[in-house]
């Protein structure tokens, strides 16, 4: 894990949240994720392959996720996690990662991105992930978004 991998995501998330959810965000203290600890209840998982590979995961509490999707839909009320809500969260992860990929390419790490996978469960533990992850917490009016970044240089 290198800090150069992380900065494009921080910049991208801030811009994208403003543009598509009209939401200002403030970066909290970066930390390493406890390898065995759970992720937040709602996670949009994006696979990354290229000069660096691994996964980037956008984690939210359930209410935070609904609040953000409501903003993405111009204030429409979001009551349950239907296909549209899940799709919106996946697309948020997709757009942030896509924009970050431009920054990564400029830093010398071109990548490709998989379509998003949405996971919703309490106490999610994803055992296939062995790559150490940096957690970037973003504080917003809707709640906290944790961006888990697990990337390593491809051999």
């Amino acid at each position, binding site marked *: 894990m290198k800090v150069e991998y992380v900065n494009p995501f921080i910049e991208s998330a801030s811009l*994208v949240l403003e*543009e*598509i959810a009209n939401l200002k965000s403030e970066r909290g203290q970066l930390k390493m994720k406890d390898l065995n600890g759970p992720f937040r209840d709602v996670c949009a998982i994006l696979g990354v392959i290229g000069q660096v590979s691994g996964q980037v995961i956008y984690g939210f509490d359930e209410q935070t996720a609904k609040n953000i999707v409501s903003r*993405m839909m111009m204030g429409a009320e979001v009551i349950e996690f239907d*296909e*549209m809500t899940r*799709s*919106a969260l*996946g*697309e948020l992860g*997709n*757009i942030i*990662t*896509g*924009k970050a*990929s*431009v920054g990564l*390419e400029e830093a010398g790490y*071109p990548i*490709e*991105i*998989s*379509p998003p996978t949405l996971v919703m469960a309490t106490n999610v533990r994803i055992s296939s992930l062995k790559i150490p992850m940096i957690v970037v917490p973003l504080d917003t009016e809707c709640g906290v978004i944790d961006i888990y970044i697990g990337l390593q240089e491809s051999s």
Partner: protein
Amino acid sequence: MGKKVLIVDDAAFMRATLKDVITKGGFEIAGEAVNGKDAIEKFKACTPDIVTMDITMPEMDGLEALKQIVKINGSAKVIMCSAIGQQANVLEAIKSGAKDFIVKPFQPERVIEALQKAAG
């Protein structure tokens, strides 16, 4: 008679957003497709005037679908609409026959401008 647009994106949210922007811009919706393979079938079935094409999709991505659609109809008007704005992607899309490349997140005006340019 408004120009008909085929919307291709794996995200229901994005298809709904684009549908709203496109109809407000005075265009009609020819149909929707959820991945590259679906896009090719719908292209043949709905004969749209313009196609908006996402890139990152399961089963077949948008760049591959673009190439196949252009093989079916050399004058097909395909506008890429993707989160991945890396230069290499944009260049490959244009070289493969895309008329324009819109990077997400987009302003509605950008989409309408691209559609109007493609409609000619």
